[in-house]
């Protein structure tokens, strides 16, 4: 993370000279070229895998393009899968700033959805402009408490956050099932146990002219705000220091505990919002369909984006496009539905593998482009 300081000192002055530009470009492009190169490498290896299966990689990628990005329907398909991934990825990326690996966002998503569904009855008489924010607040709060607890356990009890968050995701799904089939069940929901359906004015609609609900727009805003928080505020700066070295941060008097709980809770709140949108914009009630794995795909998105909230946006779109193409690939190439999972696995490993390249490729070294060390 020392790169920030370098830009601040030596970089700015030499930007005026041509060599300075090249040096700055070299330094900055490392963070683009390596992940993009790793992505391409992952796609290439997956293509070789397809060849061993007697399938054409060219046909595969052509179908991914067609079904994910090729037509206006494809874009709507991709974008309507993007919204939950944006929120779920933030639930991984924000704690990652403190060096925490939280992988239980799925739990916050389902509980956020349940909280939204549970509150819907109480606010059913309110206008949407009041009721929807209240439901969003309830969902966000549920997610914040759930993942914030993971952060608190980490800081105050030393419980490993990766395992704790995963166990809590299993517990959250059990809680959700218990609630929607027990205390919160609408007796009229016969063969699909659900909470009572949301009143019409509480439903979140589509972005005008699109077949994509408002969750996408809110998700993008959430990513932008998270970027501002991390890159432009003292809180974000303090979190990065604590993520680098907890003891150093404590020596400097930073409130490490509050940072950890705050960042995990904020990530959880975003995941909870994903659940709110699933209920208010897609399902119209909370039920077992809330647990469909968005939280786990979100992990992949966050890591591919290297936990940068701005990079999460294009990466989420890309992965949503992969998932959007799954059906067409099944139908046209006679490949199993797990094919996209294999593709994701290859890309994920390739991206993590590329971490080892940072700082080791001479082409990105500013000195090579004329900057005096």
């Amino acid at each position, binding site marked *: *993370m020392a*790169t*920030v300081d370098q*830009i601040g000192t030596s970089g700015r002055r030499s930007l005026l000279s041509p060599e300075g530009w090249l040096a700055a470009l070299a*330094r*900055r*492009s*490392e*963070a*683009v070229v390596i992940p993009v190169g790793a992505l391409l490498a992952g796609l290439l290896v997956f293509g070789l895998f397809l060849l061993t299966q007697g399938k054409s990689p060219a046909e595969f990628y052509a179908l991914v393009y*067609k*079904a994910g*990005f090729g*037509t*206006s*329907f494809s*874009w*709507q*398909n991709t*974008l*309507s*899968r993007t919204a939950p991934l944006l929120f779920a990825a933030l639930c991984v990326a924000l704690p990652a700033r403190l060096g925490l690996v939280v992988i239980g966002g799925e739990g916050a998503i389902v509980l956020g959805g349940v909280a939204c569904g549970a509150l819907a009855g109480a606010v059913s008489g309110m206008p949407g402009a009041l009721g929807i924010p209240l439901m969003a607040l309830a969902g966000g709060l549920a997610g914040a408490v759930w993942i914030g607890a993971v952060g608190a356990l980490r800081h105050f009890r030393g419980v490993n956050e990766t395992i704790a968050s995963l166990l809590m995701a299993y517990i959250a799904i059990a809680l959700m*099932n218990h609630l929607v*089939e*027990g205390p919160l069940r609408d*007796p009229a929901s*016969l*063969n*699909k*146990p659900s909470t009572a359906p949301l009143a019409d004015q509480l439903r979140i609609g589509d972005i005008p*002219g*699109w*077949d994509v609900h408002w969750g996408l727009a809110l998700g993008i805003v959430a990513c932008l705000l998270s*970027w501002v928080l991390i*890159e432009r505020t003292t809180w974000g700066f303090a979190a990065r220091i604590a993520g680098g070295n907890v003891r150093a941060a404590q020596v400097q008097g930073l409130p490490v505990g509050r940072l950890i709980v705050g960042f995990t809770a904020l990530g959880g709140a975003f995941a909870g919002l994903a659940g709110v949108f*699933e209920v208010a914009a*897609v*399902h*119209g009630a909370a*039920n077992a*369909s809330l647990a*469909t*794995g968005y939280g786990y795909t979100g992990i992949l998105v966050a890591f591919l984006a*290297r936990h*940068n909230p*701005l*990079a999460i*946006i*294009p990466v989420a*779109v890309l992965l949503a496009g992969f*998932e*959007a193409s799954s*059906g*067409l690939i*099944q*139908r046209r190439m006679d490949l199993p*539905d797990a094919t996209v999972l294999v593709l994701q696995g290859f890309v994920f490993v390739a991206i993590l593998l590329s971490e080892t390249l940072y700082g080791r490729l001479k082409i990105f070294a500013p000195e090579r482009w004329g900057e005096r060390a």
Partner: protein
Amino acid sequence: MTTAPFSRRGFLKGSAALAGAGALGPLAGPALAGSHSPLTVGFIYVGPKDDFGYNQAHAEGAAAVKAMEGVVVVEEENVAETVDVQKSMESMINFDGATLLFPTSFGYFDPHILEVAPKYPEVRFQHAAGLWSADKHPMNVGSYFGYIGLGQYLNGIVAGHMTSTRKLGFVAAKPIPQVLQNINSYLLGARTVDPTITCQVIFTGEWSLAVKEAEATNALADAGCDVITCHVDGPKVVMETAAGRDCFVCGYHANQSPLAPEKYLTGAEWNWPGVYTRMVQTVLDGGTIDNFDRGGLAEGYIKMSPLGPAVTDAARNQFEATMAEMMKGDFAAYKGPLMDNAGNTILSEGQVFLETDIALESMNYLVEGVIGSTS
């Protein structure tokens, strides 16, 4: 961090593309198949289509449709009951020109089919088990289902003859009306043999969860149940585990006799090949499928697995006699006086639920003699 330029540029490019997509406006309708081109039929399954169960039963129907002249079948499996299924339906319509869709999981109906159907009025959506009603739902949506509870009633008759502990077992996924009706029918069938028989039910809470299904089966065997059936998506694990515990088994959804040839008594199976080929033929002939379609044994919606080698003559005789009765139509498995297992009266003396009675589709109780509760 030094990723800002990349991200900003990537984001701008992305948003330009979004704007482009938006500018294209509402989706163009699908290219409709002319009368001379083949009819494209889409099937969507919630799980793997070879699960020895719910999905396999539908996939067998799809295979029969595939063999028909002038029909192209497209399939997708493991499609979640979320935006996924909405987009799978639309993708089949937009890319494959499908004009007849069979999204087969119960959870696909509300809100997913109801969300997509109005956008494509020229496409027909046929849904298993949805409660279509003319005043609430679009006319291009239809629902169909079979009285499979009757099959479980017949299972129960055979089970009633074969049990020596007078205790039957039922591994169930969730306490929803369809499942409760199967449990109740199973016990009522057995009680025509011996009214002291009871049925223990264990809910696993999930439609497909192998280890829990195996544990539930073992718990039933431990509790002394000696004829076990189930209602989960894939009965394979229950059948194998129960047979391993030396219990008899009755099948469900599809024919599971290859999994336990000696212990398999009979099974309540869907007969989708017949139903689906009939519906597709109606469309090929230019007709319209009924929006609300139900049927039992007589109408060929369900069938029974051939009786297994262990079944006694007494069981066979009553099984065949009852089946013949059902073939006449208007069979009533639920006859008064009937209490639920909490002591409430369901039917008083002289009252019955015919197989066609819509009240059966909102069942929320377990009848007297079933050990278990609905919550």
